[in-house]
């Protein structure tokens, strides 16, 4: 204990203000960016809708000129939906969005088609998560395994990544990782997984090369869930080695 307080005991309020702990600048900027992502108006979706709508009108006019308006209306609507899907979004992370049934998708079950109204609700998906466990495989010390389970209350496409406090995404081994009923593929910075059957207890096991992680530093599992209507919820789960 220094003797400074004896000398300056009348200065306590000033010292308390001056010694106010400051957060790291990279932490402030990363968190501010994350908040900005959620609060900024989504101009992208407005553009996509406008684009799809505009194309629909052009097709309607063109087809109406040669007759068969009702046929044209159906066809144009289908085309607009398809275009909206193709142009659709890749999300903040610039990840490829997988919308079909792939290795990174729940097994199909009758009645659980993507967008089925019985398994979706208005607004963004609800996400719940359990505590994170960090393990090292004794047989393979090159990787650290970070595990948790999540619950999703409607169908959603998940983009899962591990980031530093500064927002940098770390490489993940898909072969050694597991989400839901399994993923596979080359190493990636974000794993894609579609949940067709909303439920709790979906396992998320991520394998990260050990040389990318430092003891005592906080990292974040970032899970972005987008429902069939394009509503997005993102959660960040902190953990430390």
């Amino acid at each position, binding site marked *: 204990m220094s003797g400074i307080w*004896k000398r300056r*005991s009348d200065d306590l309020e000033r*010292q*308390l203000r001056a010694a106010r702990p*400051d957060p790291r600048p990279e*932490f402030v900027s990363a968190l*501010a960016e994350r908040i*900005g992502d*959620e609060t900024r108006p989504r101009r992208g979706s407005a553009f996509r809708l406008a684009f799809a709508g505009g194309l629909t009108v052009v097709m309607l006019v063109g087809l109406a000129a040669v007759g068969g308006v009702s046929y044209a209306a159906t066809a144009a609507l289908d085309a607009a939906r398809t275009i909206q899907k193709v142009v659709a979004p890749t999300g903040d992370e610039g990840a490829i969005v997988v919308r079909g049934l792939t290795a990174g998708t729940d097994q199909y079950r009758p009645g659980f088609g993507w967008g089925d109204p019985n398994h979706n609700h208005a607004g963004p998906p609800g996400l719940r998560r359990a505590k994170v466990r960090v393990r090292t495989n004794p047989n393979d010390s090159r990787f650290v395994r970070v595990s948790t389970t999540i619950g999703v209350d409607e169908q959603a496409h998940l983009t899962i990544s591990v980031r530093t406090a500064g927002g940098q995404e770390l490489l993940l081994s898909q072969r050694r990782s597991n989400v839901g009923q399994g993923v596979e593929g080359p190493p990636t910075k974000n794993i894609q997984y579609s949940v067709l059957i909303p439920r709790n207890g979906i396992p998320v096991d991520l394998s990260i090369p050990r040389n990318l992680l430092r003891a*005592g530093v906080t990292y974040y599992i970032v899970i972005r869930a987008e429902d069939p209507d394009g509503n997005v919820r993102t959660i960040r789960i902190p953990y430390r080695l």
Partner: protein
Amino acid sequence: MRYDPLAHPEELIRRLYAYVAYRIGAGPDAEDVTSETFERALRYRKSYDRRKGEPVSWLIGIARNVIAELPRHPTVEVEERLDDPELEERTAVRVDLSRALAALQPRDRELLSLRYGADLTARQIGELLGLKTNAVEVALHRALGRLRAELLTEAAA
């Protein structure tokens, strides 16, 4: 148009972090609590009511719940950057303050964190804790006295 309480987040992050750091110690745990608080704030920001207080008071209300849910209060940590020109003295002051704060009763620590960490006024603290402004001022004065006594006791030892 609806008022967005998180429209200017940088200053809110700094004030919230300072409050949390005075409560549980600076470092990764304080960052985790700060992040989790903003995650919850994002989730429930539509429920923010401007008439009930400023955004920073609302965030501190959330942060108090997050801290209460911590499995245990972590040890006080003092974080410093190596390129600080007044490293030695400032570190000594921070270490002294952190130790003395950690030795106080939770209520004193809460009051001092709100006043000198989050930089809330006595009136804002009163609104948050359901106390009259006068009562907050008196309690703050006493908490400062106990902190000063703690610092002097340790200095003497």
